[in-house]
């Protein structure tokens, strides 16, 4: 069955329709939602979408609803195993409580990366990076 479907976007995603999926965007956002539709560019329609943020052993969710994501911005699309979803050893907290920590962590990481690339540029003869962070 699998071998009959060519490795194309449409071939690999057809089994994922109407399943709960995790989408990671190029800006690092993690979205959980039900995949309702997609096309050859991997533009995605996600229903009942929540954004999840993590910090240490905590996580929080913020409800967003119906999303149409432009395919270019997708880094990863993964199916969520509903049977094992609740086994994770993380504690859920309120989004507004966790958000400041999450933002701070992003800021620190950015500062760290900036100073690292500054040192590489000045002392080791590296070129300036594009400032894309993880380089997605």
């Amino acid at each position: 069955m699998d071998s009959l479907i060519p490795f194309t976007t449409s071939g690999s995603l057809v089994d994922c329709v109407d399943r709960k999926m995790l989408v990671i965007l190029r800006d690092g956002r993690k979205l959980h939602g039900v995949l309702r539709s997609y096309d050859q560019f991997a533009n995605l329609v996600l229903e009942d979408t929540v954004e999840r943020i993590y910090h240490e052993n905590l996580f929080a969710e913020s409800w967003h609803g119906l999303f149409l994501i432009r395919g270019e911005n997708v880094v990863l699309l993964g199916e969520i195993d509903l049977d094992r979803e609740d086994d994770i050893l993380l504690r859920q907290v309120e989004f507004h409580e966790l958000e400041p920590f999450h933002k701070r962590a992003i800021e620190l990481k950015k500062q760290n990366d900036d100073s690292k690339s500054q040192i590489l540029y000045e002392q080791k003869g590296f070129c300036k990076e594009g400032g894309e962070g993880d380089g997605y």
Partner: protein
Amino acid sequence: MLPLSLLNAAQNKPMLVELKNGETCNGHLINCDNFMNITLRDVYQTNSDGDRFWKLKECYIRGSTIKYLRIPDILLDAVKEEQVRAREVGRNTRGAHAGGPGNRGGRGASTRGGRGRGGPMRGGRGRGRGVQ
């Protein structure tokens, strides 16, 4: 229902568009095309930090600069219902054509059989296609 057809169906609906640079635009969709280029009316634009706002009467966004669009939740249901209704209409008109020759061919066999054969098969195919 492909993503871009959903966007097409969202005309005149409110939506939030986030651009790749993090800026957001809140407004009603006027029009869109197959490149995802869109025009919005009565737009509230915010910068990427979310601390500055602009009000625009109308704006055009090039599709390639879009990160994602958030559209009203009810739209998906509305579009699904619309599709079902369109399919019903299609089936009824096609059913009428198919019924004609069937009746003529096997009058003795019963008209119910003829319609029964045509109806469910056609319906089954229609639903299969509609998944997406």
